[in-house]
């Protein structure tokens, strides 16, 4: 934001300044217009057609959407899968991140930098690598997890084939990749809480648990909301992990068929451009509705404060 004095200085701007400002913004609007905005509107248009790769294009009105709603269990399954994997990953992820940030915030901990670096490294690893490694962890015959299970005297579990097993495996990948990242964000928030708040609470005889719930949580609430929103957006767009873990169909029963994976398969494996575009718009609407709900919820939480 400009201060009043600053804008006075710039009042004498010439026509030339206007021109250069627009010139500097031109690259963004050009690129954005051609490669984002135009495709978005075009995909709305395409969603009213039956259109395959050979160019057979037929206007069918809202038929794609009607099919999606009334005659496509796969789509609803993908919506359900996306939400269930999102729930399974986000809750433990954010909870663990909070615990971890609290530990890293303890004054007596030595080697903080090393630990911080260690926990955030999963986040920079490519998704393809993550999916390959975890695929080997969750293998049926010789997977590491099943090895430990059998060492404990338990039966081997077919992670890839079962409904919850496959979703669990994908959720674990997400948790592994994002917990450290969120912990670092929480840590920054924790470090910005003034120490005298805790001091005053201690003098008043507040226990550690009371301090945590009465000071820490309220103080870092904005950051918690931020991480919830980011995890939601990320979770709704989950794609690479399920693709590599269980293939483009999301496993034998479509256990990990997420919304974006379904969109991808319809568009680029089955070449149903019209139908895929309808899925894309449904995805957008679901994300929009969900963010609005999120927004409503955070407003509620804030006003309850």
């Amino acid at each position, binding site marked *: 934001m400009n201060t009043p004095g600053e804008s006075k200085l710039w009042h004498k701007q010439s026509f030339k300044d206007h021109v250069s400002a627009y010139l500097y913004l031109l690259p963004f609007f050009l690129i954005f217009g051609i490669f984002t905005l135009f495709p978005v509107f075009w995909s709305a248009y395409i969603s009213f057609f039956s259109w395959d790769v050979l160019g057979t294009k037929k206007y069918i009105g809202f038929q794609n959407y009607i099919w999606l709603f009334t005659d496509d269990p796969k789509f609803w399954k993908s919506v359900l899968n996306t939400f269930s994997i999102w729930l399974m990953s986000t809750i433990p992820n954010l909870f663990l991140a909070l615990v971890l940030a609290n530990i890293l915030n303890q004054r007596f*901990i030595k080697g903080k930098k090393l630990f*911080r670096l260690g926990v955030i490294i999963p986040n920079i690893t490519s998704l393809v690598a993550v999916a390959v*490694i975890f695929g080997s962890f969750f293998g049926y015959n010789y997977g590491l997890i099943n*090895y430990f299970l059998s060492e404990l005297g338990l039966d081997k579990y077919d992670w890839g084939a079962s409904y919850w097993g496959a979703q669990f495996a994908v959720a674990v990948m997400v948790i592994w990749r994002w917990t450290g990242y969120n912990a670092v964000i929480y840590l920054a928030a924790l470090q910005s809480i003034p120490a005298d708040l805790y001091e005053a609470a201690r003098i008043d005889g507040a226990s550690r648990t009371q301090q945590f719930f009465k000071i820490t949580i309220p103080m870092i609430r904005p950051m918690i909301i931020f991480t919830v929103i980011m995890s939601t957006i990320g979770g709704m767009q989950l794609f690479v992990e399920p693709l590599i873990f269980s293939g483009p169909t999301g496993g034998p029963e479509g256990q990990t068929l997420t919304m974006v994976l379904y969109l991808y398969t319809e568009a680029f494996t089955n070449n149903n451009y019209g139908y895929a575009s309808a899925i894309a718009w449904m995805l957008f609407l679901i994300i929009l509705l969900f963010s609005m709900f999120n927004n409503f919820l955070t407003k509620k939480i804030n006003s309850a404060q």
Partner: protein
Amino acid sequence: MKSLQRLLTYSLLILTFLVSVFPFYWMLVIASHPTSEANKFPPNFIPGDLFITNVQTMLDQIDFAGALLNSVFVSTTVTIAQLFFCALAAFAFSRLQFKGKHFLFVFIIGTLMIPGQLGLVPSYMIMTRLDWINSFNALIVPGLVSAFGIFWIKQYMDTTLHPELVESARMDGCSNFQTFWRIALPTISPAMATLAILTFMYQWNDFLWPSIVLKDSAVHTIQIALRNLNKVYFRDVSVIMAGTFLATIPLLVVFVASSRYFISGITAGAVKG
């Protein structure tokens, strides 16, 4: 009591650390044994001596060096372009006055809400018409400038680039572009460093879009090459892991070298977000 608590805290921390790092170690373990070893119970937890052999097999199966070079080329180009174009636009928003400034800025922030997959099919069709399938243009041109980058740099410029400095540069006869190039750019280098790391990593790890537009193996980026290795040779776990491990190293090195910026970068972003 207190020492017990410390012991517990440290154990928890070390456990988390091990869980974070273990997959990398496990990659190396599998990559340095024959595949038959990976398909055996109990598994071997100590690295073997076949890493080079597995790497050689992997090199015979995919053009690893070529894919790596492609990734370096695309990621570097996109990063440099974004630094330049985003800083330029941010400069206009931060230090120039023009009609519609506020509206345009709000519009740019608003564009962040559009999910990337929404225009996936038409984007592919545009690339087909432009004849950019199998061309790096398909990756580079749409990534030349980003709303996030503009927002990021603008926020930083607002607080660090003093108006007096800009004003005096103009008094001395600098044009707007000279002011941007000589005065603004040097002062925002920390924000540029963070944006560079974020952009580079995002581009390097991107999978969905490259997998759609880069069909020919000669133009595959490293992620797509790895995925193909996984798809075609899925029985050969050791070879896959050798490739994955080798492909992870460059980014790890870049990251550890620049982690200071990265960590301060994500936390600064979080504060503003």
